[in-house]
């Protein structure tokens, strides 16, 4: 097949002005990964501080560290990288030649870069970067309590990055709905494409609320009278969490989709319970728009029981998704590749995050655990030990498609083992510390609490994670230099992206196989085997 597309190492300038969805997505992924490394450095500093009994940075610098760590990981890494995966693979999986609105998608990339630089440039101002947490919640974030341009740069940065994400979601959504190849009906779209479709719906409906909340915050800072008193604080949080909970699922669904593809491919069988899975995804997305105020149980300003009901009801679609993932392993022939190992760890570790999520969805338990390290442990098990592992499953699975070269499996397995040890050593002790009363966002704690030992364990764990990420970078560099050619389909894939060259040509396909199900390449293989038998 022809390979007129330049490899990933093509001149950066051409990448930054390209309207090829694959180049935009790779650039977005690279930018997001750079922010992941930057946010990770902040995490290392925070962990050093907490292990060393508060001796590393001053209290207000610590406030900047956790604010920028959370902001970077959510606004500049997890959400962009999730949408970038959709930007790359949704057109390929539905057999489209291009993404819908390629220039709009390019604008999204520039908004991400601009927004990220704006947020991070706060560190260069005399007052330092924003320090009012990733929620930026009023009144702590108003001009009286957070004066200075760091906060302003944060507001503009987050607005820009978020606007870009809405644009991306629009492009991916339109591609899935309007650019499908002949024969590719909605109910033949791969699991990953479906997960992106619901992700984009959430993004389009929920993200504008964040832009609105931040616009109101900006107006409050400059003119006052917008978010006033206790109820102003409540109103800001209603708007913020109307974004802030759906965004959690934007950082979850795409990775469930990736894990679904990886599990099906390396089980060598068709995804189990496809239609139930799609219905569960849609129900999950709908419900997840109704749970936002479970972040506000301890404010005493919302109907806790309603939000407890909707949040706990998430058990049903989540349970179906788990059943379908396990069902896909049933009677399969498993190949324990690095991608598959990451997918398995996602299933196990996300489960810990999910089950503890049901616990904090119960107000009587949340009254005791809210704002503590228990909650920090819970959402890091979903976002890092869960979604980031799903992301690495996707990276090891799709890297050959992106570059034409295979990643080293040996380095990959080492990366996997280290990051699994590191993640659990970092985040599991937080459940214990939180139950014992350790509050989040504190720069130091009394030694008499006896919390230091577990904090040291966590910090060592973070170091192991850092080491594993370095190993991953080494793997990428080494594998690109000493190229082991992947060919079109190194894994025995089931979906259309494996029916074209690696990397795919500018317009993705020179010819398409017939599409009669959600696993067209598996259909072909089965037909061939049937003919041979």
């Amino acid at each position, binding site marked *: 097949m022809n390979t007129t597309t330049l490899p990933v190492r093509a001149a950066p300038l051409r990448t930054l002005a390209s309207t090829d969805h694959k180049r935009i997505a790779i650039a977005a992924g690279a930018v997001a990964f750079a922010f992941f490394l930057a946010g990770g450095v902040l995490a290392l500093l925070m962990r050093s501080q907490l292990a060393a009994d*508060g001796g590393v940075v001053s209290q207000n610098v610590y*406030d900047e560290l956790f604010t920028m760590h959370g902001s970077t990981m959510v606004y500049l890494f997890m959400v962009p990288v999730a949408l970038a995966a959709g930007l790359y693979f949704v057109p390929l999986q539905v057999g489209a030649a291009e993404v819908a609105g390629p220039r709009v998608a390019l604008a999204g990339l520039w908004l991400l870069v601009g927004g990220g630089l704006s947020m991070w440039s706060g560190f260069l101002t005399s007052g330092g970067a924003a320090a009012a947490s990733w929620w930026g919640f009023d*009144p*702590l974030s108003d001009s009286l*309590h957070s004066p200075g341009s760091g906060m302003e740069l944060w507001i503009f940065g987050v607005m820009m990055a978020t606007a870009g994400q809405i644009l991306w979601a629009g492009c991916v959504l339109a591609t899935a709905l309007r650019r499908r190849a002949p024969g590719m009906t909605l109910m033949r779209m791969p699991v990953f494409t479906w997960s992106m479709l619901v992700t984009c719906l959430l993004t389009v409906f929920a993200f504008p609320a964040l832009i609105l909340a931040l616009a109101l915050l900006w107006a409050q800072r400059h003119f006052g009278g917008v978010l*006033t*008193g*206790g*109820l102003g*604080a*409540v109103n800001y949080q209603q708007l913020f969490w109307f974004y802030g909970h759906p965004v959690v699922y934007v950082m979850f669904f795409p990775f469930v989709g990736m894990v679904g593809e990886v599990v099906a491919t390396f089980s*060598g*069988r068709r*995804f*189990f*319970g*496809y*239609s*139930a899975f799609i219905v569960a995804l849609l129900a999950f997305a709908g419900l997840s728009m109704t749970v936002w105020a479970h972040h506000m149980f*301890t*404010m*005493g300003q919302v109907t*806790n*029981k309603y939000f*407890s*009901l909707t949040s706990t*009801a998430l*058990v049903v679609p989540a*349970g*179906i998704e788990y059943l379908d993932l*396990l*069902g896909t*392993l*049933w*009677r*399969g*022939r*498993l190949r*324990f590749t690095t991608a598959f190992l990451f997918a*398995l760890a996602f299933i*196990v570790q996300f*489960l*810990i995050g999910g*089950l503890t999520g*049901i*616990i904090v969805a*119960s*107000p*009587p*338990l949340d*009254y*005791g655990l*809210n*704002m*503590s390290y228990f909650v920090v442990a819970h959402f890091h098990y979903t976002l890092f030990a869960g979604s980031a592992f799903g992301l690495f499953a996707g990276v090891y699975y799709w890297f050959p498609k992106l570059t034409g070269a295979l990643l080293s499996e040996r380095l990959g397995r080492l990366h996997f083992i280290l990051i699994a040890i590191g993640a659990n050593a970092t985040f599991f002790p937080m459940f214990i510390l939180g139950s014992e*009363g350790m*509050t989040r966002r*504190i*720069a130091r704690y*009394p030694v008499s609490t006896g919390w230091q030992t577990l904090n040291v364990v966590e910090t060592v764990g973070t170091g192991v994670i850092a080491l594993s990420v370095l190993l991953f970078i080494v793997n990428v560099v080494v594998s690109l230099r000493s190229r082991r050619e992947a060919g079109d389909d190194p894994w025995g894939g089931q979906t259309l992206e494996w029916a074209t060259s690696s990397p795919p040509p500018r317009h993705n396909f020179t010819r398409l196989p017939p599409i009669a199900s959600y696993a067209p390449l598996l259909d072909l293989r089965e037909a061939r085997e049937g003919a041979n038998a």
Partner: protein
Amino acid sequence: MADTLHAYRHVQGIYFPIAIGVFAVIIAALLVLLVRGARRSRPAAARSQALAFEVAYALLLTGVVAVLLWVTFTAETPLDRTAAHPALQIKVTAAQWSWRIEYPNGATVTAVSTWHPPVALVPTGVEVEIVGTSRDVIHGFWLPQLHFQRQFLPGYVTRFDLRFDTAGLYDGECSVFCGDQHSQMHFQLRAVSPAMFQQWLFSHASRTGTAR
């Protein structure tokens, strides 16, 4: 009766074992699937869906949700209510970065940004109503030993009841990030018998004089 400690323990005693049980079942199923799947030389014929099974499974999950919610709601209702006639009402004012605890007779205890705050007393075995507010940003009144917290908002009054069944020292922290000295925003309560409490309150009031 707003007994936060027992409400927490009751709900925890149902939720945590279920969570651990579900985790164990799923891990066991996963291990069986992995061991069998690793031995197979080629995929076995298998159905790609089992709709009736999935519907039954969804109904089972709905039942589990209903049980969890029943446990949660029955435990929550008394926590969200305040007693009509509390034995004692205490005003708590949070600010960057201090707690001011004020008793009906005007006695006050103030803790300013410290890990070793002065101790304020409360009586055991009765409903104590907390009437809380903030002077600036959002703060969180958290007593980890009672497994209970509530946020205090500026310009707004938060009311809730606490019950201290066991005499002893209760550490309190600010749970909501509130700026620079959030880490040091501690307070301390000591629960003593009602008689001792009355005695302390009287002598403390005379020491602090007519508190503002």
